[in-house]
């Protein structure tokens, strides 16, 4: 009896060195705590040990293990490599992929403590979040993503062989420029089943090949089929206008794109959509993972599985991660999602176990319920950053961070402090902060509003300039040029003040040849 006790209390490792046995032991001990004590629910883990170059590789292809080829990835790789070699930038300790099995990459240079930390953080914290959060369930298909990426890579390679690298590159340039406006923000019929995408594409092509008949080419063209010009409303309805997913609109409606070009736009769009939930849950995702690793590491230490030395090393690294510099600090670079997320998760634990009178007033439904893991699991499953902050940012945290809200109106000479961390300000600050994490508030609201398919085919877009903040002009012109190249006809973008409907600015672009054949203007 006593001997077994001594064995379980022996630390998992001593010193910085590790080998695969160490990782297995750490994983197993962490798993016990995560599943039994915290009640997490995770995909099967796959832990991959990688070196520096592979980490840089993963960086440049947005963390994905396999990706199609494009010069911009080479650019990011070179940038990161140069920065890393010059010592200007460290590398992440891990990268985790939302797939089933859940793949975590860990760096070979990490110490044994760091490996334990990243397994707890990524393989359990992020993994649980990926599997349970409603946004990921709604938008991503963890089972199919690796297969789909493989398909995308092969498809784009085959297009390069058929149509030339230059043609594919031009198309991808244009698609990447529009990638930020290539997501459906609201679920449509159902989440796409990525595994069937490849099959669909194959069937579509086979069908085309089967029904191909060269005779059709020789049949004289039809008389103009549409006699009466449809009413504008009807036309818009047919084209599903207005449409905020610009790439989707291009894929479905751009008149001159070849089928393979549409398929590539679709690939870029689907990948953008896959990452859409991650951009909406930065605070929660990191908060969840950080809270998980913090809890697990402390439990490991309590059980005697971590030496005091390892624990100190952990605390030092953890403190760095959740450090929040103040606004007048030179290191300040926005709110740190790790800091905010971790603080909020810990705060929820505090409210559940040791509520104050204020907490009872603000959070009557959870204050003092004493089952904080249950509350946290529910939060991780059912919220995104915006709703999470709106719901759970407590006055105590607002005071803790000393948050204040500043308005900056370009028409006024001075900035004005709207609210601070006092009785009157809590709600205002909570709302303003939540809005900062709202996607529709963060990214420019650009929509395709009209096109006259029967006439000059000019595409019209509106940017509803929230608070009269216009688009960056240089970039907007470049992207619009790409859009015109895809569309094949002129494109016009109006920037509109949503309050008054006044047009603030207009940009126009005419297509260049390259992606599609351009007819000379009449």
């Amino acid at each position, binding site marked *: 009896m006593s001997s077994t006790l001594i064995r379980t209390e022996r630390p998992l490792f001593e010193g910085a060195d590790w080998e695969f046995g160490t990782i297995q032991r750490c994983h197993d001990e962490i798993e016990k705590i995560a599943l039994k004590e915290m009640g997490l629910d995770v995909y099967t883990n796959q832990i991959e040990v990688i070196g520096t170059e592979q980490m840089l590789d993963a960086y440049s292809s947005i963390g994905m293990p396999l990706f199609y080829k494009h010069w911009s990835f080479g650019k990011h790789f070179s940038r990161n490599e140069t920065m890393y070699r010059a010592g200007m930038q460290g590398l992440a300790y891990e990268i985790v992929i939302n797939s089933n099995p859940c793949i975590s990459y860990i760096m070979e240079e990490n110490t044994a403590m760091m490996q334990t930390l990243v397994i707890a953080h990524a393989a359990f914290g992020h993994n649980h979040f990926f599997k349970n959060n409603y946004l990921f369930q709604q938008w991503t298909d963890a089972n199919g993503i690796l297969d789909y990426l493989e398909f995308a890579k092969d498809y784009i390679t085959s297009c390069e062989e058929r149509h030339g690298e230059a043609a594919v590159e031009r198309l991808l340039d244009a698609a990447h420029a529009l990638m930020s406006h290539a997501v459906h923000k609201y679920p449509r019929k159902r989440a796409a089943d990525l595994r069937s995408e490849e099959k669909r594409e194959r069937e579509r092509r086979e069908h085309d090949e089967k029904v191909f008949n060269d005779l059709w080419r020789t049949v004289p063209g039809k008389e103009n089929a549409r006699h009466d010009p449809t009413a504008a409303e009807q036309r818009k309805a047919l084209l599903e206008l207005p449409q905020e997913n610009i790439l989707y609109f291009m894929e479905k409606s751009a008149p001159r794109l070849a089928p393979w070009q549409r398929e590539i736009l679709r690939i870029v769009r689907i990948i953008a959509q896959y990452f859409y939930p991650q951009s909406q849950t930065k605070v929660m995702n990191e908060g969840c993972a950080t809270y998980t690793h913090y809890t697990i590491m402390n439990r490991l230490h309590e059980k005697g599985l971590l030496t005091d030395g390892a624990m100190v090393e952990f605390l030092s690294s953890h403190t760095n991660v959740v450090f929040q510099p103040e606004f007048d600090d030179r290191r300040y670079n*926005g709110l740190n999602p790790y800091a905010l997320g971790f603080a909020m998760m810990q705060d929820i634990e505090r409210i559940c176990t040791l509520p104050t009178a204020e907490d009872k007033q603000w959070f009557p439904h959870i204050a003092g319920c004493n089952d904080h893991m249950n509350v946290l699991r529910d939060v991780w499953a059912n919220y995104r950053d915006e709703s999470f902050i709106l719901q759970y940012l407590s006055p105590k945290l607002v005071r803790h961070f000393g948050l204040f809200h500043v*308005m900056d109106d370009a028409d006024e000479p001075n900035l004005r402090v709207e609210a601070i961390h006092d009785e009157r300000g809590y709600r205002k600050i909570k709302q303003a902060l939540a809005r900062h994490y709202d996607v529709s508030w963060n990214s420019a609201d650009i929509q395709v509003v009209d096109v006259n398919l029967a006439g000059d085919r000019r595409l019209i877009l509106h940017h509803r*300039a929230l608070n009269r903040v216009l688009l960056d002009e240089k970039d907007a012109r470049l992207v619009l040029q790409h859009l015109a190249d895809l569309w094949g006809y002129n494109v016009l973008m109006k920037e509109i003040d949503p309050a008054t409907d006044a047009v603030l600015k207009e940009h126009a672009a005419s297509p260049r040849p390259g992606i599609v054949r351009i007819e000379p203007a009449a």
Partner: protein
Amino acid sequence: MHIVDRRLNPSGKNLANRQRFMRRAKSQIRKAVHESAGSRGIKDADEGGEVVLPAQGVHEPSFRRSGTGGIRDHLLPGNKEYIAGDTIPRPPGGDGGGGSEGSPDGEGEDDFRFALSRDEFIELFLEDLELPDLAKRRVVNADAVVFHRAGYSVSGSPANLALNRTVRNSLSRRIALHRPKPEELQALRDAIEALDPSEDAKRAALEEELARKQRRTGIIPYIDPLDVRYRRFESHPRPVAQAVMFCLMDVSGSMTEHMKDLGKRFYVLLYIFLKRRYKNVEVVFIRHTHQASEVDEETFFNSPETGGTVVSTALEEMQRVILDRYSPDNWNIYAAQASDGDNTASDNEKTAALLTKTILPECQYYAYLEVGRDAEHFPPGFIRRDSDLWQTYTAIIRNGAPMAMRKVGHRRDIYPVFRDLFAKKTGAEAAAE
């Protein structure tokens, strides 16, 4: 849980992306390479290194909000003194509300630093340069041999057995000689078996037929040694282009350290360049005063020498070395001569004769570099007397010899002059020469 060790996976996964990026930014990288080549020492000329590209050309645009104008609000941590309703003067230069906001995508728009490997650097550095008269290729030694498939042979090692061809031959032979098929034999046996005991005559006939066929099968083998074929390989000697580069330099008292340095830089460039084009490049150093000798590199550049200047001695020495070791039939011969242009007046005629009669016909290319003192770097258009050698060589070039000469006064001129000498000739230019 699985643990996978990916460290041993093939590296260079990003190479294709890197090449695409380089192609994309080629004109900018090229410019940066040439600028950086000017600023670094020639010794490191063939090292890779960092170049700085303007962010502009490889920018990836997106629809994003501009950093100025409109109404913005900021949520900042760390309030110490402000209360609601306070006004804060707009921070100078910045648009942020008291703090420094990161750029929207977290990436700066600074110039882009880019590290090139040695090969990439050289490739761009020497791009568009071409060696004149590269044609001479020559077998050097027997170990450079390649094997090519060359049809089939009737003998060979078992490993090279051409199974398809063997079976094909066998099949056609069996058909031609009417070797009975196993099915035919089986059919006969079945027929005999099925016969009624009464039909003796028929049975005898059939059995005879069967015996005949079996005999035939025995005589005609399934695979005959005649059928067997082997894949045949022929060995071809691989042509190996090789070059020798002669560095000739005047080391008499009138050549300063500065001039020698210029000469050296030119040789280094030429060496890198030749190295790119030929697998095997040898270098011969010949220095001369009023007498010439072949020396090693160290002595060539560093040991001082005094004496007069007789250029023809160096050419004679070169001729001797060529006869001795580098037969013009086997070697591409390049020569680069650096001198301040002085020569003993009586030697000019001999030099010209040697060059035109013996040296130039054997050479692929002969470059003469006249190095001047830095202080003598006259502005263009300034007329000065041409040196003895310059005048002599001008006369030779006028007769259309494979020779070129340039004047260099400063380190920075070396590379342009070098490019100028070896720039790819367009069709028209080549014809004009």
